[in-house]
């Protein structure tokens, strides 16, 4: 059983890893690369099942343990089913009830809720930043000052235009230096992890046992 549960998946990782690397560096394999590139998304397509499974499991457990919160789980399931059915049928038709329902759910429910939830973060990152700066040393004040200048610079007018120039400089010089250092570090880290995965050293993605 160990073969089916651990060794074969690990062997597949090594085989597909080496094949993926070879397809990038050997031009003769371009044809296979194109086929494999259209084959891989098929697996992605089904991976949504993991999300649905986790959500279903979480809400069923919650409904059992917290009966007073049951109504929210029911709302989640109803909105999931309505949107999924409207999308599955509506997106394949040019008109009709389901297409209209899907368009309306997307434009008047999904998009406004997403934008509102993201905009809500503006209030919370402000209070989180204030609490963080209050207790920290002078170096973290730099973050506050630089953030404040960029915020002012984005809406600068008249005599405040100096903040516009300063904001441009902060975004073009220190931010570029910091982010570039991070990007290089992240890139090297990803490459090292990828090599560890292909060599079978890194196996955490296979879960416990």
């Amino acid at each position, binding site marked *: 059983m160990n073969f089916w549960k651990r060794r074969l*998946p690990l062997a597949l*990782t*090594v085989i597909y*890893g080496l094949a*993926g690397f070879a397809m990038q*560096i050997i031009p003769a394999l371009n044809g296979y690369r194109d*086929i494999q590139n259209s084959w*891989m*998304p*098929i*697996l*992605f*397509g089904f991976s949504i*099942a993991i999300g649905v499974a986790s959500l279903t499991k979480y809400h069923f457990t919650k409904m059992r343990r917290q009966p007073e919160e049951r109504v*929210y789980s029911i709302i*989640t*399931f109803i*909105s*999931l089913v309505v*949107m*999924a059915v*409207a*999308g599955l049928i509506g997106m394949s038709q040019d008109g009709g009830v389901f297409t209209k329902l899907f368009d309306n759910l997307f434009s008047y*429910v999904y998009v*406004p*809720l997403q*934008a*509102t*939830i993201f*905009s809500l973060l503006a*209030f919370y*990152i402000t209070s989180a930043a204030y609490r963080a700066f209050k207790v920290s040393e002078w*170096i973290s004040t730099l973050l*506050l*000052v*630089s*953030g*404040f200048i*960029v*915020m002012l610079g*984005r809406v600068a007018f008249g005599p405040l235009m100096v903040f516009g120039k300063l*904001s441009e400089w*902060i*975004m*073009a010089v*220190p*931010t570029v*230096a*910091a982010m*570039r250092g991070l*990007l290089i570090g*992240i*890139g*090297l880290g990803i*490459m090292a992890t*990828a*090599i560890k*995965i292909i060599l079978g050293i890194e196996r955490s993605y*296979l879960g416990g*046992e």
Partner: protein
Amino acid sequence: MEAISTLFWPTVAVLLTLAIYTFLWEDNPIYKVAEHIFTGVSVGYMIAQSWHNIIMPKLIVPTTNYFSNGRYLLAIYFIIGGLIGLLYLSRFSEKTSWLSRYPIAITVGFYAGFKIVPIWMTNVSKQLNATIQYPNGDSMLNLKMFGKFFDNPTWGNFISAINGPIIVIGVLLVLIYFFFSFSNDNIVVRASRKPALVVLMLGFGGSFGYTFMARISLFIGRMNYIFSDWIEILTTTLGG
């Protein structure tokens, strides 16, 4: 009846927006309803997207085409892909959930190998190149810029001269800071810690301000929708 159908969905959008903002006061049932609707709708949307943008065009249509063109081996390979993808559904049962390791192992393995070269190109090689020279080919440590400043000592020339060296030294400091983050007594590593933090804090502050303004513009967008678009729809529909 027409007025109701015109007003209904925009009003739903307004009510949901206000329901989310009630969280600013405190966690409450109205916010929870809106939050759970968002969760359900998002997952439902992803299911529809996966079907129409992946399963149909990447699996069902190509497989049918390969069969009709007589390319049976390719068709079988795509069917195997679909069957391996279906193994994700084994997650619904604890006994069979180990089967989902197959699609995960193939995905992780393939992209680990496939992404090494692009990651090297985009994250490392191009970033190092951009740290050495400007897009026009001039060196970042161009001493001619300092010469220009000494010939004509203006604030603009000074900034132009120091920008390149600040980026080069900043990148080096950040790299040293992260690669030697463990306890280290080397004098270069110790001396570079504070300057590296200064660069990082200025950078993070810039990103923070930028993100904050992006969120604020979303907030303005929502307020604009309520107080301009929706009010206009309301007055036009009810007034007309």
